[in-house]
């Protein structure tokens, strides 16, 4: 039986201080997006974000513990069994745990469109490897992501970061140029991203 307990899933702690439990990825679900989150070192359980880029409606379910959601500036304290639905993708949303055992399940999708696996699902697993200096493993995961989502700006950008950190300057500059061409907004991030410090002074570094 395809069965798992939320505590038995991978626990991928991300820089924003929350732990991603990749439900969709674990089961290989294709029809819809679903993930779980538990608090990391910062106590955050859902990163502060909007769904502007994906256009997703989202629903969050508190699986256990207590959680404080902030949605469009309004705070809502929720306990196990409570649900919060965010229809408007532009609303900023995030949550912090009010108890150590907190766990949240999130599912979402874009109305009227078949589910597409989001690019961040390919980038997030690489983050702990980048932070630990395991650049080859990070690159392997990101290249897998590019096979699934060719030309995706965010994955290309993260690949450029991994290559820059690994000292592979030519590859990093090439992938960064492709990333910025795919998503010009990434240029702003690239200007100050520490991961790209080793290539920022190269004349090939994209400036506009």
């Amino acid at each position, binding site marked *: *039986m*395809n*069965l*798992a*307990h*939320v*505590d038995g899933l991978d626990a991928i702690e991300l820089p924003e201080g929350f732990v991603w439990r990749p*439900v969709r990825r674990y*089961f290989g*679900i*294709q*029809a*819809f997006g*679903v993930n*779980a989150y538990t608090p990391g070192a910062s106590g955050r359980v859902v990163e502060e974000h909007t769904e502007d880029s994906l256009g997703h409606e989202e629903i969050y*379910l508190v*699986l*256990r513990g207590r959680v404080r959601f902030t949605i469009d500036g309004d705070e809502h304290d929720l306990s*196990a*069994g409570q649900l919060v639905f965010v229809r408007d993708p532009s609303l900023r949303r995030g949550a912090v745990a009010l108890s150590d055992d907190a*766990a949240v*399940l999130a*599912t979402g*999708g874009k*109305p*009227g*469109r*078949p*589910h597409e696996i989001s690019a961040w699902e390919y980038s997030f697993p690489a983050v702990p490897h980048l932070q630990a200096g395991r650049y080859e493993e990070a690159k392997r995961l990101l290249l897998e992501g590019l096979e699934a989502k060719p030309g995706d700006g965010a994955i290309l950008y993260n690949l450029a970061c991994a290559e820059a950190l690994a000292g592979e300057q030519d590859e990093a500059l090439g992938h960064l140029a492709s990333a910025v061409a795919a998503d010009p907004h990434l240029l702003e991030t690239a200007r100050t991203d520490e991961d790209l410090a080793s290539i920022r002074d190269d004349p090939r570094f994209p400036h506009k």
Partner: protein
Amino acid sequence: MRGRATFTVGDEQSEAPAGTLVFVPAEVFRTAVAEEDGTLVFVVGATVGEAFAGGGWDTFAVADGLRQAGRVDESRAVMRKEMEARPESWALPYNAACLEALSGNADEALALLRRALELDQTEIHKYFQELLG
């Protein structure tokens, strides 16, 4: 989500305490029974490669609950609203026909059944064959 349930998926049975996730492909039979009072299961699903569209069963469940409570006009209004929103659905007029038949309104039931047949003869005949054996 809360409590404890025993899931049967295909030929397998498994205990599922709170926090357990069970993934089931479309074609596999599945059911669950609660092992504790207050057990609550949260379900999410969709068709691979297709935009999500409600199956209409949840509307039917609400409407049937109203019918069983004697609130036939409200039951009818729930189905009518969904049929207006999704005029292409054969299942909605089919289920509305069932509700009318159960309420003893044969004329309205037959009219809805004809509408369902116009929308998808194949599906309706499948149901008829199941009913007739």
